[in-house]
């Protein structure tokens, strides 16, 4: 199966065979991290970065009263802590929400890629820029959208991101995330998470069955969530 990072990057620009080979060969080993375990901890100084091949993970911080805020959801193809290559010390942790299959890429290999592959380097740069764009969108939603709109936006975003790495089945995504975890992501109580999901369901926009979430009315969901996919930079062009 194609490395999902390659799928993700190729959505945005073509990669040469040499670039794809460089990415494939960059993988030093495969790690399995079980659900609820840390992939990388706040304060760590890793000498390798983790590329998520399968599963869901969350960037998070814990505040002094023990409450957790999830600041990003990571899916297959996300280079979870590419940041640590340059930031050195992790300012947040990354937690596996489900069993995660992870490819580790030594920082020394990343350094070699930046020296030998300028276009691939720009593509990895683009990847972290998109992470930043998603953060901006989440911050705006958190501060200014209603809980229902915020949830709708998150579902739209996850659908397109999963689609970009071939992880959807028709209009259905598999989202093995608990309502408590969604609450920590959206800054809502579990009660509110449940209410907004019920509202979206009652309005006929989504249907969920276990972990499977089906989008029934994309246009309406998009409109409720004020979702505009520009920030995901999904179009293929020279970069």
């Amino acid at each position, binding site marked *: 199966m194609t490395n999902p990072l390659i799928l993700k990057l190729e959505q945005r620009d073509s990669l040469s065979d040499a670039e794809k080979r460089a990415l494939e060969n960059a993988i030093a080993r495969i790690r399995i991290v079980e659900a609820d375990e840390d992939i990388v901890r706040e304060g760590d100084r890793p000498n390798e970065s983790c590329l998520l091949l399968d599963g869901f993970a969350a960037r998070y911080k814990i*505040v*002094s*009263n023990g*409450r957790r805020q999830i600041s990003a959801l990571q899916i297959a193809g996300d280079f979870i802590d590419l940041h640590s290559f340059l930031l050195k010390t992790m300012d947040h942790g990354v937690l596996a929400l489900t069993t995660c299959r992870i490819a580790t890429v030594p920082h020394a290999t990343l350094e070699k890629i930046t020296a030998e592959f300028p276009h691939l380097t720009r593509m990895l740069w683009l990847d972290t820029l998109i992470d930043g764009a998603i953060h901006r969108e989440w911050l705006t939603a958190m501060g200014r959208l209603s809980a229902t709109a915020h949830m709708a936006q998150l579902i739209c975003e996850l659908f397109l991101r999963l689609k970009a790495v071939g992880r959807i089945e028709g209009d259905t995504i598999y989202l093995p995330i*608990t*309502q*408590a975890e969604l*609450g920590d992501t959206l*800054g809502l*109580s*579990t*009660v*509110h*998470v*449940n*209410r*907004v999901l*019920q*509202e979206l369901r009652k309005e006929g926009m989504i249907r969920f069955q276990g972990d499977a979430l089906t989008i029934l009315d994309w246009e309406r969901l998009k409109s409720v969530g004020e979702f505009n996919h520009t920030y995901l930079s999904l179009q293929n062009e020279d970069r």
Partner: protein
Amino acid sequence: MRDITLQPMPVLADGGRHEGQLILADGQLVAVFTWVTSEETAGGDERAGGWFLEAGFGPCSSLISATPPVLATLNDAVSWVRDRLDHGLTP
């Protein structure tokens, strides 16, 4: 010790009519609790029905308590309110 009184009041919350209680401290409204079913808390840590802090004011406001609690009984809700009032503005 503050005088805490309860006043039943239905609340039109998301999802429709909920049984509710206004909680007043010395005659001032500090919190509105609604009864939520186990279905509404499903997936959370609570996994049971209870009294949910629908709205809070001053020391009971959501700015102070980042995640509104679901409490098993009204007595627990009153204890929670007393605790918030005692702590004032420190979380």
